[in-house]
């Protein structure tokens, strides 16, 4: 049974992704019988190429996605280089993982409110400092260069990369490496970049690729933070998919295929940059200069703190909105406070809230069982899954959601499962499982194998060793992984729409449906609810193991 786990798990991913891609590829070449397309042609591609602004949209996708990924990466490693082994590092470690839990659409709305010409920042300064009686007619948010989108994506990706970096750091004995380098006279940040980064980069590569792919194909954040005249490719696809003229479905399918190519192109660009940086880096490392990265690392630290601060302020802004009745320009705080929106929404939010909770908990638990089964099976066989098989697990993170979800929906509809709990949980698993795997695989593989060997030699069978030794010793990372999985589930929008079919709605689908009405107070209520569930999850994940092991000093941090 255990031996089947990797195959079963992979098939959960292969079937929908393959079906989904086929579902996107066929209409892209003119085949969609329900719309009268029963021959293959290149017509959708001709329309795609002729559509106004496609080139600009592709450029915008690549620019914002790659810039956001590069910036998140630079801030993460710059901060680690400057602050590794400091108090600040430990503090951010606690602060950033809950930030990962915050639904990014809610956050993007908060950011737009913060930075818009009529937004919070400008209200705080007007008219007394700026002299503006009405909001200035300037392009602050959205801006023509995609900077708002880049900032929002950076706030979202930085905690993720930081969490992955922590996992990688634990594996490589960074402290000792750093001590040696510093004893040779290297300044801390320079030592970190020259000696630790090359060690941890390998482990961070997959998460970075996921971040790149996500950033170039993101829909909801882009929708909220780009101007109407600077859409990214993903927004064009959304526009086509939503066009009342059903012949646009062909165009949308071609766009979805193009989106995959754009994502692959971005990954290729990143890989090329990797090679270049590695070559330059080797020269820099070998040149022997003992300092040189200190200022840059300090700037990155400042950047990380700013980004984190902006994220928190944006969220606080939405929380205040939920308590406002009137909050107009130029009031720095609501002119009229009220709980009316809360009391009116509370009843409506109960059912979707419960669905969110059930789906999130079940998806996280199933993913946990599958991940643990895969890891345990790998451990017992004494080998790791080949790189190729591993990549398959991450396909839902790399392949743009819009590209395969329509096809996956046809699959669900044709087997009559759309709108069922099973379908919804399965759709969430597609995204929960890879993240859970990312969060748990390193701690699991890092667990000193001699504990298990000792237990075996004490006469305990493999199952008893797993349940009595490994699982309890990994309680903390397991709890965190569950919280990560739950947070991912809570945030899923498109998979919920496609698999839930409107029959099952979550806080996120309700929130997005409400967002169209533009009522920030209502969006604030849903943002708070959406953020509260994962935050409680993280709180429980931190508190429960700490309480259970309150009398076990050896089980604190750093296992």
């Amino acid at each position: 049974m255990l031996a089947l786990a990797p195959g079963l798990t992979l098939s959960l991913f292969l079937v929908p992704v393959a079906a989904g891609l086929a579902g996107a590829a066929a209409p892209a070449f003119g085949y969609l019988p329900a719309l009268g397309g029963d021959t293959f042609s290149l017509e959708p591609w001709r329309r795609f190429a002729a559509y106004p602004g496609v080139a600009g949209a592709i450029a915008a996708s690549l620019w914002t996605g790659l810039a956001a990924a590069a910036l998140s990466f630079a801030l993460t490693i710059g901060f680690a280089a400057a602050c590794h082994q400091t108090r600040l590092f430990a503090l951010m470690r606690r602060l950033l993982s809950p930030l990962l839990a915050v639904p990014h659409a809610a956050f993007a709305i908060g950011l737009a409110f913060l930075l818009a010409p009529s937004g919070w920042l400008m209200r705080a300064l007007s008219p007394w400092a700026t002299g503006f009686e009405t909001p200035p007619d300037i392009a602050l948010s959205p801006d023509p260069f995609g900077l708002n989108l880049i900032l929002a994506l950076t706030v979202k990706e930085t905690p993720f990369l930081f969490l992955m970096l922590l996992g990688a750091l634990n594996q490589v004995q960074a402290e000792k490496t750093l001590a040696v380098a510093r004893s040779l006279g290297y300044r801390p940040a320079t030592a970190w970049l020259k000696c630790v980064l090359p060690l941890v980069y390998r482990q961070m590569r997959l998460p970075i690729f996921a971040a790149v792919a996500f950033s170039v194909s993101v829909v909801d954040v882009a929708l909220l933070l780009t101007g109407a005249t600077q859409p990214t490719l993903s927004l064009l696809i959304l526009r086509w998919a939503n066009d009342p003229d059903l012949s646009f479905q062909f165009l949308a399918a071609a766009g979805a295929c193009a989106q995959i190519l754009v994502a692959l192109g971005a990954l290729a660009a990143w890989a090329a940059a990797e090679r270049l940086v590695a070559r330059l880096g080797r020269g820099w490392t070998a040149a022997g200069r003992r300092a040189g990265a200190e200022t840059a690392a300090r700037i990155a630290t400042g950047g990380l703190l700013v980004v984190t601060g902006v994220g928190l302020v944006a969220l606080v802004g939405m929380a205040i909105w939920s308590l406002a009745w009137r909050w107009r320009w130029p009031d720095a705080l609501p002119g009229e406070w009220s709980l009316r929106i809360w009391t009116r929404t509370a009843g409506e939010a109960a059912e979707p809230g419960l669905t969110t909770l059930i789906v999130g908990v079940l998806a996280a638990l199933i993913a946990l069982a599958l991940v643990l089964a895969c890891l345990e099976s790998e451990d017992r066989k004494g080998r790791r899954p080949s790189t190729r098989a591993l990549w398959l697990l991450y396909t839902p993170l790399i392949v743009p959601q819009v590209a395969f979800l329509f096809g996956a929906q046809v699959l669900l509809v044709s087997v009559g499962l759309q709108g069922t709990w099973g379908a919804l949980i399965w759709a969430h698993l597609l995204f929960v499982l890879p993240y859970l795997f990312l969060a748990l695989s390193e701690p699991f593989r890092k667990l000193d194998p001699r504990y298990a060997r000792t237990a075996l030699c004490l006469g305990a069978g493999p199952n008893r060793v797993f349940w009595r030794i490994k699982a309890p010793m990994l309680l903390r990372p397991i709890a965190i992984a569950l919280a990560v999985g739950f947070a991912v589930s809570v945030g899923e929008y498109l998979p919920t729409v496609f698999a839930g079919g409107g029959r099952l709605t979550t806080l996120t689908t309700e929130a997005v449906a409400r967002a169209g009405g533009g009522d920030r107070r209502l969006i604030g209520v849903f943002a708070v609810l959406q953020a509260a569930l994962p935050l409680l999850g993280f709180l429980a994940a931190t508190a429960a193991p700490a309480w259970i092991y309150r009398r076990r000093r050896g089980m604190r941090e750093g296992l």
Partner: protein
Amino acid sequence: MTAPATLHLEAVEIALGGRALFAPLSLSVAPGETATVMGPSGSGKSTLLAYLCGTLAPAFSVAGRARLGERALDGLAPERRRVGILFQDDLLFPHLSVGENLAFGLPPGLDREERTRRVGEALADAQLDGFEDRDPATLSGGQRARAACLRTLLAEPQALLLDEPFSKLDAALKDRFRRFVFEHASARRLPTLLVTHDPSDAQAAGGAVVTLQKGSEAQGPAR
């Protein structure tokens, strides 16, 4: 309890990727005796013990065989071999209390009273009376080492493997703990195999000494 048996290694050779770590090794350790395997880092000492425990990674290939008395060890799951091991670190399970750690070693099928009694006795034996509920992390190095040793012995092994268990202790402690382990092993008439690179360990063990050497014939037993 079964009768004491001799641990036999017959032309054991372990290879990784087609390259032998050491030349075929033959060795017999009688009940109550301690043999020492010495060799430089990377010579395969720990790998040899992993083979005897049954926890060798599948990437390794093995020629030769190992027996405990008439019982062949090859192919047996680790938990059925009844071979105990002590590592350099005590490896007390950090999530269990000292008493639970020891109880984990006890054979199944004993009633609760019996389990409590045996754990209590073992703790007394290690001068850890009343430590049942203590957090292992609060114990001193010597206390932890003794607790780990007794946990291994409570599992009623028929042979004992020692993977440099003394190397991390300071000189005074090392001497006391070494005596503690050897006394208990010989009292239970266990064949004991020690791997170390510290000649003083070999001396204290007092049995045969084998030196593993890369790429050449292992040297025969010598004093």
